[in-house]
């Protein structure tokens, strides 16, 4: 809630002090037993003061409900009338005396306590005892005829002994009781010592018991009257007695019974014969009793009972209007009923009751306000009479004997008024009094109470409605500025919820307020909205309002609004006159976006984007919804870049600046965007329409953004729904369809479209590590010289970071670039480009990993162009991107093999072995292998400086090249690591298609790890490559000792079916360290074909780790034996 709106939630409790409708305070309070304390001098005696303070301070809920009062000892209590012995001739004058409740609450005590300072061992005991007795007697006399109890409290200085121990005390106590005619239960001792509060609490509990007994006897007494009553003449007494019993029960704190008796009283009161003369009395009492019942129900935590009782009460009394001339009294009374119930309900909620949305005190306050409004209307109708000539009757509140009676015929109970003339005078006096009642104030206070409640119980619309009512009431009370404030506050709710009927009604009231207080700005705003499409006023009304609006714009006084209070009109005219004289030249700016003004405005850029060399076109559409044409003098559009504002203004007083009702008009603006705005948005930030003239009154209507208002979003939605499937082609072409006119508040300024072509030529995919060539051809189709052409080439930014690490771009195609080359070459100057000229450029890309890459080729240049008459230096650029795959050119597999071409797991030191390299091309393009070499670390080549076997080999896709190296591993210096890195295999290659001078790419392939082994004994055989059947073939076995020890070798040759042989079949020999033994055998093959050689069994007794099996792998296993050649004779050849 706005802070300034706090103003209307003021005095929550209506100012009704002294109003006859206010419930008496003695009715509304909680009745408590009344105990009078006498003999206390609270002014001069400190002890007495302390006692009194202990009685009245800290009376919390846990202490007994007693209201104490200090009275002088000789206080005169209200006289008790002599008890009636018979009711036979008694005719009651009314239901309840106005003084009765107060009498029993505050005047007639249930108990009078006499405080007296006296110790048991007082020296002057006799004298003091008789003085005390006298004082008791005085009190008794004053209470003649009442059942009020009397008690004596002795204030003592000494702490009493436990009962029974102090014989003097009990004796003297008995004597004192006797002298004062008191029962022992009514004599108390109050030692004035430390524990005063404790004693006081015990005392008051005792007093409370006495008081309860008193009220009990009172109830019995009232009940006892019943048997004397008869139903014809004593009907009023039935009610009175039930009420009294209930009230005494309340004093006795017996609320259950009190409720019961009040209910009886309530049903009895409706049995009374009601007629015009006693209607007010019946209603007043019914209201009292109803109040008591509801209050007790809430107290007993049975709120539903309270609500039911109240509903019953209202239903019973609603129609009991009474005298029609005083009908406003009934409305006032009804209002008060609702108000006090609302207050009871509210109070119960504060004490912990929970209310709900549909049942909360707000409804009762609202209804109370409703009846107050009715009261006001009735008062306006009925209180037309002028001041009566004769002296008005005295009708001051108070001064009545009985509740709810008329001053001029108190105590009168007959059906017809006793004096018709006096009756008339009385009614007139009441009417005159009613005329001065602050009706609006009451209504507003009740409404603001209701608003507070509905706010609490989540009823925003109810709250708004009540605020409208408050606003209207302020209007009636002629507090126009408050009225406008309130109405303004709720108007937007109705506007946003699109309740046009209600909005129009509120606006009409607000317009009247604005007129009457001559608030020009408010007046114009309300006029504008009432003329707009949200208002459902009739055409003639709108026409009248528009004329008034035009008058205000011409700085003239507008005509008065209809239904205005005629007395206010003259003041309003004066005010307007002053305003016109004072503010002749002021300008007013009105933000209309949050209203629904009668001029609608929508702006749109013709396109969502414009190229910088195009003129930006902006259309502004205006439409008037008012009944007569309206003209304006200036239309200006504000853009986000203020430099353009100068192009978007129309002003002058031409015919074209006139808006016709229901027609839309468009205004077109165009301007050339600045080159620095390329890539930026241009936005409409505001639109301003000027109504009126500079010489008269200027009103600027402003829209934020591209126009539109509160209702337009919904209208656009509806229009989009209706467009679906509707053919609108047959509409008049020049008239835009307003509903489907969409706003376009911003446009993008795009760079000029380049007129150059960028072509890329390359052969994808790229191969890893190669200098991949991309040819760029830039061809200018511009009409002018493209200056300052710059090329940016390379990996498109925004890809995986790893890619930029493994991609290198260079312009130099003659050598392989290193890792320092960047991934993106920015701004390579290419010079100027004449029209039609072509320019070529090569870029080399080296990719170190496989994968997809996006490359960007960005050609930027500047060029002079003409837009309209303006010369413009435009920056243009053209982007080409290409997505490229990078792959391995070939797959190389490297294998170690023994000299027997068997795969090797281990390499034996100093024994030759083979390295096989298989190169399989996976490139789609033919590859030229330029050279290959091995880069050894520990191993040496057996064939140094042999040319590469692969030199000049061209591999097509899928083809494989193989190369073989014979290697030997020298003995290791440190034998600690058994596996060693052998080195790498280097391959130089290029694409077959590339030029001769293009650089070779060298690819290094690491050799597999080798595990080394050393053997003590090495054996190898010298044997021919083949044998021939039955031809001797000699085999020489060389056995080398590789250890530093003398080795003993046992050697045996196993017999074989395929061979006969000569030589040592079994031998044992010694080989010195580092030396060699040779064994010569002559084998004589017996069979042709592959034959297994005789097995050689070797064992080393000193070195059991190397046996025949380990050694045998060095030896050839088989040999091919050719069949025996036949002697060829010449004739057979000739025959053949």
């Amino acid at each position: 809630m706005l802070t300034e709106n706090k103003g209307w939630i003021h005095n929550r409790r209506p100012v009704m002090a002294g109003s006859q409708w206010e419930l008496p305070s003695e009715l509304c309070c909680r009745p408590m037993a009344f105990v009078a304390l006498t003999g206390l001098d609270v002014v001069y005696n400190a002890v007495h003061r302390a006692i009194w303070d202990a009685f009245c301070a800290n009376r919390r809920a846990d202490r007994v409900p007693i209201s104490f009062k200090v009275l002088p000892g000789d206080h005169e209590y209200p006289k008790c009338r002599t008890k009636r012995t018979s009711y036979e001739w008694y005719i009651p004058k009314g239901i309840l005396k106005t003084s009765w409740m107060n009498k029993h609450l505050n005047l007639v005590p249930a108990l009078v306590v006499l405080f007296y300072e006296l110790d048991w061992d007082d020296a002057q005991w006799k004298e003091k005892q008789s003085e005390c007795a006298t004082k008791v007697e005085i009190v008794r006399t004053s209470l003649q005829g009442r059942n009020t109890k009397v008690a004596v409290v002795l204030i003592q200085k000494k702490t009493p002994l436990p009962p029974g121990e102090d014989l003097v005390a009990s004796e003297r106590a008995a004597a004192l009781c006797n002298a004062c005619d008191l029962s022992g239960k009514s004599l108390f001792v109050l030692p004035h010592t430390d524990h005063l509060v404790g004693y006081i609490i015990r005392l008051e509990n005792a007093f409370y018991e006495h008081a309860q007994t008193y009220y009990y006897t009172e109830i019995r007494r009232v009940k006892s009257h019943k048997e004397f009553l008869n139903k014809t003449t004593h009907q009023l007494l039935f009610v009175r007695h039930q009420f009294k019993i209930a009230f005494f029960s309340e004093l006795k704190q017996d609320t259950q019974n009190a409720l019961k008796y009040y209910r009886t009283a309530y049903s009895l009161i409706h049995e009374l014969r009601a007629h015009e003369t006693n209607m007010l009395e019946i209603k007043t009492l019914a209201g009292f009793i109803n109040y008591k019942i509801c209050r007790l129900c809430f107290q007993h935590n049975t709120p539903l009972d309270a609500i039911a009782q109240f509903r019953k009460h209202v239903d019973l009394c609603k129609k009991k209007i009474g005298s029609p001339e005083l009908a406003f009294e009934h409305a006032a009374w009804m209002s008060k009923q609702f108000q006090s119930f609302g207050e009871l309900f509210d109070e119960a909620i504060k004490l912990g009751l929970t209310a709900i949305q549909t049942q909360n005190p707000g409804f009762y306050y609202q209804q109370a306000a409703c009846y107050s409004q009715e009261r006001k209307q009735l008062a306006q109708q009925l209180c037309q009479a002028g001041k009566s000539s004769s002296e008005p009757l005295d009708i001051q509140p108070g001064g009545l004997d009985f509740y709810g009676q008329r001053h001029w015929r108190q105590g009168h109970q007959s059906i017809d008024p006793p004096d018709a003339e006096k009756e008339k005078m009385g009614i007139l006096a009441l009417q005159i009094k009613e005329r001065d009642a602050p009706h609006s104030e009451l209504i507003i206070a009740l409404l603001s109470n209701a608003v507070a409640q509905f706010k609490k119980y989540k009823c925003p619309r109810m709250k708004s409605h009540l605020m409208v009512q408050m606003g209207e009431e302020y209007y009636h009370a002629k507090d126009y500025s408050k009225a406008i404030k309130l109405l303004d506050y709720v108007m937007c709710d109705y506007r946003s919820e699109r309740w046009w009927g209600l909005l129009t009604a509120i606006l009409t009231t607000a317009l009247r307020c604005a007129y009457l207080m001559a608030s020009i700005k408010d007046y114009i705003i309300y006029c504008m909205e009432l003329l707009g499409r949200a208002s459902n006023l009739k055409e003639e009304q709108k026409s009248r309002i528009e004329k008034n609006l035009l008058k205000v714009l011409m700085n003239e006084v507008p005509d008065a609004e209809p239904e205005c209070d005629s007395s206010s009109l003259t003041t309003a005219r004066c005010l307007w006159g002053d305003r016109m004289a004072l503010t002749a030249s002021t300008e007013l700016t009105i933000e209309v976006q949050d209203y629904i003004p009668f001029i609608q405005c929508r702006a749109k850029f013709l396109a969502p984007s414009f190229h910088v060399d195009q003129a930006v076109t902006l259309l502004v559409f205006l439409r008037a919804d008012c009944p007569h044409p309206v003209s304006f003098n200036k239309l200006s559009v504000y853009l986000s870049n203020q430099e353009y504002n100068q192009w978007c203004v129309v002003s002058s007083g031409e015919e074209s600046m006139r808006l016709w009702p229901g027609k839309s008009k468009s205004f077109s603006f165009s301007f050339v965007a600045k080159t620095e705005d390329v890539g930026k948005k241009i936005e409409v930030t505001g639109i301003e329409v000027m109504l009126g003239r500079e010489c008269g009154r200027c009103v600027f209507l402003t829209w934020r953004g591209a126009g539109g208002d509160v209702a337009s979003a919904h209208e656009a939605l509806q229009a989009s729904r209706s467009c679906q499937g509707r053919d609108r082609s047959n509409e008049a072409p020049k008239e835009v369809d307003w509903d489907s006119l969409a706003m376009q508040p911003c446009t993008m300024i795009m760079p000029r479209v380049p007129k150059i072509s960028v072509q890329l030529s390359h052969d994808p995919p790229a191969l890893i590590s190669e200098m991949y060539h991309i040819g760029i051809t830039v061809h200018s189709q511009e009409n002018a010289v493209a200056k300052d052409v710059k090329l940016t080439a390379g990996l498109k930014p925004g890809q995986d970071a790893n890619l930029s690490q493994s991609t290198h771009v260079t312009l130099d195609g003659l050598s392989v670039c290193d890792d320092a080359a960047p991934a993106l070459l920015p701004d390579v100057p290419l010079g100027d480009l004449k029209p039609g000229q072509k320019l070529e450029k090569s870029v080399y890309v080296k990719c170190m990993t496989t994968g997809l890459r996006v490359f960007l080729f960005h050609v930027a240049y500047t060029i002079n162009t003409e837009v309209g008459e303006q010369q413009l230096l435009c920056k243009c650029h053209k982007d080409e991107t290409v997505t490229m795959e990078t792959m391995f050119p070939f797959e190389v597999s490297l294998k170690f093999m023994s000299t027997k071409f068997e795969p090797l797991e281990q390499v034996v030191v100093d024994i030759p072995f083979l390295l096989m390299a298989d190169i399989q091309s996976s490139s789609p393009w033919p590859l030229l292998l330029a050279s290959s070499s091995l880069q050894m670390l520990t191993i040496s080549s057996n064939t140094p400086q042999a040319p590469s076997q692969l030199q000049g080999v061209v591999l097509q896709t899928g083809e494989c090249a193989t190369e073989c190296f014979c290697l030997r591993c020298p003995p290791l210096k440190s034998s600690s690591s058994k596996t060693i890195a052998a080195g790498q295999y280097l391959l130089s290659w290029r694409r077959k298609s590339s030029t001769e001078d293009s650089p070779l790419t060298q690819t290094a392939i690491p050799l597999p790890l080798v595990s080394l082994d050393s053997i003590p004994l090495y054996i190898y055989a010298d044997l021919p490559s083949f044998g021939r059947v039955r031809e001797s073939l000699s085999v020489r076995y060389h056995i080398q000792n590789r250890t530093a020890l003398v080795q003993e070798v046992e050697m045996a040759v196993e017999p074989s079916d395929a061979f006969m042989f000569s030589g040592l079949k079994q031998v044992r020999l010694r080989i010195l360290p580092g030396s060699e033994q040779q064994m010569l055998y002559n084998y004589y093959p017996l069979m042709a074909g592959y034959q297994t050689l005789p097995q050689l069994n070797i064992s080393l007794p000193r070195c059991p780790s190397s046996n025949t099996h380990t050694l045998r792998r060095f030896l050839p296993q088989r040999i091919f034996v050719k069949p025996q050649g036949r002697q060829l004779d010449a004739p057979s050849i000739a025959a053949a």
Partner: protein
Amino acid sequence: MAVCIAVIAKENYPLYIRCVPVQNELKFHYTVHTSLDVVEEKISSAGKSIGDQRELYLGLLYPTEDYKVYGFVTNTKVKFVIVVDSSNTSLRDNEIRSMFRKLHNSFTDVMCNPFHIPGDTIKSKAFDSIVSGMMVQAG
């Protein structure tokens, strides 16, 4: 019979309001508008409970001194409000329900009209006559 019948859009603006007597129109508009507080509250509290089968009939929204206001919400959150004179005690809950059902059927027919744009105010003779049949006859 009803003294006011209103159809309120999902966004809480009126699609149709008819009331007798016509001179009290503004008051009825306020009554219907304020009753939306209770409707909103009921819808939001019903949304929390389990089960998709929501009771469309909301029952008595709130009693004022003079009128009883009943509510009904379709599955598309279109609200129907019927205002009945408080003195009309003969009207039972069942009858109110059947009034709403009739209104709902007629409303569905209006929506089925291909020329009707959902969200526009209802202009239909058939709907008018159904509503008239449920209103207190003026005069």
